[in-house]
Every structure is written in structure tokens, then in C-alpha cells.
């Protein structure tokens, strides 16, 4: 079972393994969400709202839907 970024709990750290091909994969890459980068989960908005992550000194907010394409470890 592959671990997706949206499955992680708040304050957990991880490394991006790869990103599944999806309509916004080029956008994710532009925001520096690339294989091999480390990140931590800063916050998750309630009711399945967006996720707030710190990735390479950069704070990024993204929806769960996009986070589901990011496979992590």
C-alpha cells in the first residue's frame, strides 16, 4: 500500500517518492514538490479541507485532492 501525502497526520515529516501523473502534476513540480524533497505537515484544515505543508523552507497550501497524487515515505 502506497502512502499518500494526504494520509499523514499533522507534524509528521516525510520524503516525496514520486508524483502520479495528473492534471496538475506540472504545477506541483513548479512549486518545488519534487521526488526526493523532504517536507513536514504543518496543519490540516478541518472537514477534509486543504493541507498546509513546509517543503524545503517553503510554506505551501494544497487541497487533499492534489495531495493524494503525492506518494511519500
Amino acid at each position, binding site marked *: 500500500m502506497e502512502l499518500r501525502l494526504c494520509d499523514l497526520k499533522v507534524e509528521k515529516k516525510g520524503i516525496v517518492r514520486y508524483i502520479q501523473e495528473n492534471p496538475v502534476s506540472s504545477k506541483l513540480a513548479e512549486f518545488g514538490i519534487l521526488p526526493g524533497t523532504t517536507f513536514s505537515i504543518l496543519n490540516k*484544515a*478541518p472537514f477534509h479541507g486543504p493541507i*498546509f505543508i513546509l517543503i524545503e*523552507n517553503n510554506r505551501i497550501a494544497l487541497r487533499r485532492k492534489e495531495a493524494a497524487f503525492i506518494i511519500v515515505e
Partner: protein
Amino acid sequence: MSSNTPFKIALVGNPNLGKTTLFNRLCGLNQRTGNYPGVTIDKKKGFLKSGDKNVEVIDLPGINSLFPSSKDEELVVDYLLNTENAEYPNKIVLIVSALNLKRNLYLFEQIRDINIPIVLAINMADLAEKRGVFIAEKALEKELGVPVVKISAKKGTGVDALIGRCMETSVIEERAPSYIEEEELAVLEKYSAKEGLANNYIGLLKLTTAAKSEATQEFITENNLNVRKWKTNASILRYKRINSYLDKVLTVDKSKASDFTTKLDRVLLHPVFGYVIFIGVLLVIFQAIFWLADFPMGWIETAFEWLQSAASAGLPEGYFSRLITEGLIPGIGGVVIFVPQITILLFLFSLLEESGYMSRIVYLTDRLMQGFGMSGKSIVPMISGLACAVPAIMAARTIENSRERLITILVTPLLTCAARIPVYVVVIALIIPDDATVFGIFNAQGISLMGLYLLGVVMTFIVAFVLKYLLKPSYKSYLLMEVPEYLLPGMKNVLIRVWTNVKSFIWNAGKIIVATAVILFVLVTNGGDDFKNTEQYITAQYPTVAADEKNDLIASYQTENSYLGMLGKTIEPAIEPLGYDWKIGIALISSLAAREVFVGTISVIYAVGSEEEMNVRDRLKAEVNPHTGMPAFGLATSISLLLFYAFSLQCMSTVAVTYKETKSVKWTAIQFGYMTVLAYFSALIAYQLLK
């Protein structure tokens, strides 16, 4: 003077890293807003002098990438690729944040490949050093091959050096591509040559854009290209390149790192307290635009009343003087009265944006807004819609998804804007006495006003919810947003921002409102034969009345038979079921251009026929509907009017801005249409139930 054409510098950079602060620092108040050629979107230009050279600075909207995903980004990319344009910059200043160098260099790498001379400005270098982030600017300059200057836009350090480096002559040459796999380069070269493009990177941008030409689409199919993959690869390759030199220019001392932002976010983004604080912030904004603005609004009102009486006393009698005192002065007053509210709103907004809290609001509300077919980014236009829909609709530009953006634009005018307040206040006062209270403590008029605000908000969400099911979802709805660190807002910058925005509001809305006031005046003071023969008619009908009363009768008869009166009578059958007579009809027509005109018109129309000086409210209360013999503004009519004004789109500025932003007659008409239908039928139902 060396030459007439100024040296043009364009400011480019990611959003929220002090680009506008630098612009304000460079140009001060010496700036103005214009339009981009072809599209009517505000473009900020400023001027400065370097030695004997005139320099023009263009502030472009913040972008994340040359692969555009929002209207703002499309605009900047079009501007940067259109080298034929007379406004094309001689040089680009690319602003990066020292706190986020890697991510910002990504944009640099992209723009570098269009081959425009660039100067790199590293902002917040001082702050970064305090946090243990050191950048070797000389080494970076060597790696990038362009001038690099450290600045602090807030404090102004390094700005002179930046201008100096901009004025140096520089050559930029095509470099080896770092955005495409080697085996794919040949096919890209083929495309660029076929299209006659200046360089290969522009070729890549044209191949990957959403709006492809037919020839481009054919080329992609012919060569069986996966351009989406190219886009992703381009980003991965660029980060690889940045990583290859980043270590040489950047040193980070982790022990000095501050996690102030992280700590603050723990509270401000807390699943419970975060929302409590957000609602608190909303209440403060609401209170401020409502109660705080009340004082200066009172002064402005008094000042214009004084001006009007002074002008009518000082000017010689005549049609032209009346045009000034009864048309122009109240018209201008009607615009100026909104300045306090808009100023306060813009001031608080600038504070929220500069401090970084605005991005947190977007994050907090995204889930809720998703339920209504909008994005967290819709909250920004919606809050500004509480002051005025015009800047609000323009603010929707940052929403990437076209469906979410459209819904936001369509529903924003339902929110109670400042222009509805004067109408509400006058009509509420007709049905609720001043001293009435609820539970003995709350002012009943105030509560009613709150109720109307709430009604606007509820209807906004209802309509958005309906639109969500009517509009087909496009596949690409996403939220991907950089969230800045918390920073103390620079006061000077905030004030400059408020001033430039207020100025543009006065100018844009002012033109329309003043024009309406003048047209209205002309229509009410001219008419057909009946109008011209008023005096004979009245003399014949009432041969015995006193001179005073006769003058009143003449004035009243003239209004009724003026062109405006004729117009009001024409629509009377349509509005009678709502409980309105032709006089209210006139007010409705005249306030088609702008709602607040209602109060002015109604006081002009009902002004006639009374001897003693009464204020608008007493005059309206005394008015009797000739058909029913009942008060013209009874409970049913007043409620019906309130509902009509709550939902109808009586604001030409909003119609104009919706058209500009959607570039679609269809959506502009739909917005106007649905709001009018909503207004008409809710007013109809209310009147028929209550009468």
C-alpha cells in the same frame, strides 16, 4: 533631456514578496494606473529620474510561473512575450526573496530564457541574515550572468544601487536550454523555426499554453508530443539546475532559524481558535466600515449641504446655475460620501495582505467555499464586496479556476455594498421609529440593517450553490498556494496603496454617478407641451390659490410631465404590483446607474408640494398614494423596496466591470438578468403578502 522615450523597467516576481513595496519605494506618489493595450486591466506605471534619464517603471501582477494558470499570469506572460509592443520593457527587475531563494530562482530561470536583460533584486536580505540565511551575491552574479543587488524594499536600502545597475548597458545571449530533455530538443527547434520564433523557449511556452493556435495543435498531433509531460519535465530540470549552483551561493545557519511563523500559525490556523479569530477579524472590519466611517460621512454630508446652499446663494439665477446646484454638486457629493468606507476597507485589507494573514484566510475558508462552487480565494473578493462590488470583481482575477472565478463574479454584487446603505437607512427609518428597541437594549433600526446584511450574505451563498449545479465543472479545480511568512506591514506602503486605489475609485465610479446626476436633472427640467404650458394650466385650474401654493402646484405638475415623469408613468403598470407609484418608478430608473441615486432622486421628486423645510424622511412619511389613498410608503411598499434594492443590480459600474472581467456579453446579461428577476419577484411576493 536626453530623449523623449523613457527607459522602461518592468518589475516581475512571485506574489507577496515586496514587489509593490519596491515599486512604491522607487516612484513614491509619482504613479498612475492605466490599461494594458487590448485588455482593460489596470496597469500601474510610475516615473523616476536617474541622472538626466527619464525612467518608467511598470508594476506587473505577481506571478509564479511563465506557464500561466490564472488571468493575472496570462496577462504578464502575454506582455513579456509580445516584443513588438511599444510598451515592451528595456529591462526587467526580477524580485526574489532572500528567505525563499530557491523557489524564486525558478521564475528567474524561466524569464532568463526569453532573453530580456534582467537585474536580480534580492529583497529582505537583511531579515534573512538575522535568521541565518546568507547569500553570496557576487557568486550568484557569476552563476547567473546577470547583475545581482541586495535590497530592502521596506527600508529602502540598496534601491539606488539597483537603479544604477539597471541603467548599465547589458547584453543577454541565448544560452543552452535547461528546460528540455536533449532528445526532444530537435523537435522543439523544428517547431520554433516553423513558427519563426525568436528562441526555443518561447516555442516551448507556445506549445504548452492552453490557448493553442490551430497550426500548433496540428504540430503536436503530427509529432505525437506529450506537452504536459514536457511541462513537468521542464520544472524538474530547472530545479536540478538551480540545485547545481545553490550550494555555492547560499549558506544557512540553522541555529538562528526562527519559527515565529510556525508558532503563530498553530494559533491562527487552529481548527477551533483559528476560525474564532477569523470571525473576530471579520467583525472588526465590519464594525470599522460601518460605525467608524459614520463620522466622516456625516461631515461630508454637512459640507456638501453647505456647499449647495452657498452656491445657490452666490450664483446668478438661471438654468446653468441650477444645473450646478441641483445636478452637479449633489452628484459629486454622492461619490465622495463613500470615500471614508472604501478608504477604511482598503486600509484594513492592505494590512491583512501585507502581514500575510490574507493567505491564511484563503486556507481556512477553502473547504467551506468549495461547497458553494468557489475557492478559498473567493473570500477576498467577497469581503471587499461589502464595500463595493467593483474592486471586488477585479480581485477575483487571482482565482485560477475559471468556473470558481465566474461564480464569484456572478454572486459578489448580492453582498450589501456601501451604496445600498443610504437607501436602507432612509427606508428603514420610514417603518421603524428611531427609539424602537429589541429586548430593550438593541436599536431596532440597527438590527434591521444587520438583517439586510445577513440577507445579502445568505442569498449570495444560495445563488452560488445553485450555480454550482448549473455550471459544468472543469477538470482543473485546484488550490496550490504559497503561504508567506508573517511580516510587520510597512505603513508607508500601506498608505500609498490605499491612496492610489481610492483615487481610482473616485475617478471611475465618479464619472458615472456625476453623469447620471446631470442627465437626470436635464430630464426632470424639460418636457413636452404639457410641461411647457404648466403655468397656464395651473392658473386655469386653480384661479383662486395663493401664490405660494400655486408655485408648489406648478412644480409638482412640471415634475409629473417632465420627460422623467413620462418615463416613470410608462413603467408604472409594471411596478404597481410591487406597491410603487410612478414617483418611485422614476427613482428606480434613475438609480439604474447607481443605487445611491435613489435617495437623491426621491428627495428631489418629493421635495415639491411642501411649504416648510422637511427632511427626506418626514416628506416621504407624509406622502399619500393617489390611487389607494394610503401612505405611499407603508409597511408593504417599504419592505418590497428593501428587497428590491437588496437583490437588483442597479449599478452600471458593476455591469461594466463584469463585462471587462468576463469579456462575455452573455454572462454580463445573465448576471443582470437573474438579479433583476430575483429582485422583482421577491418584492412582488412581499408586497402582495403584506398589503
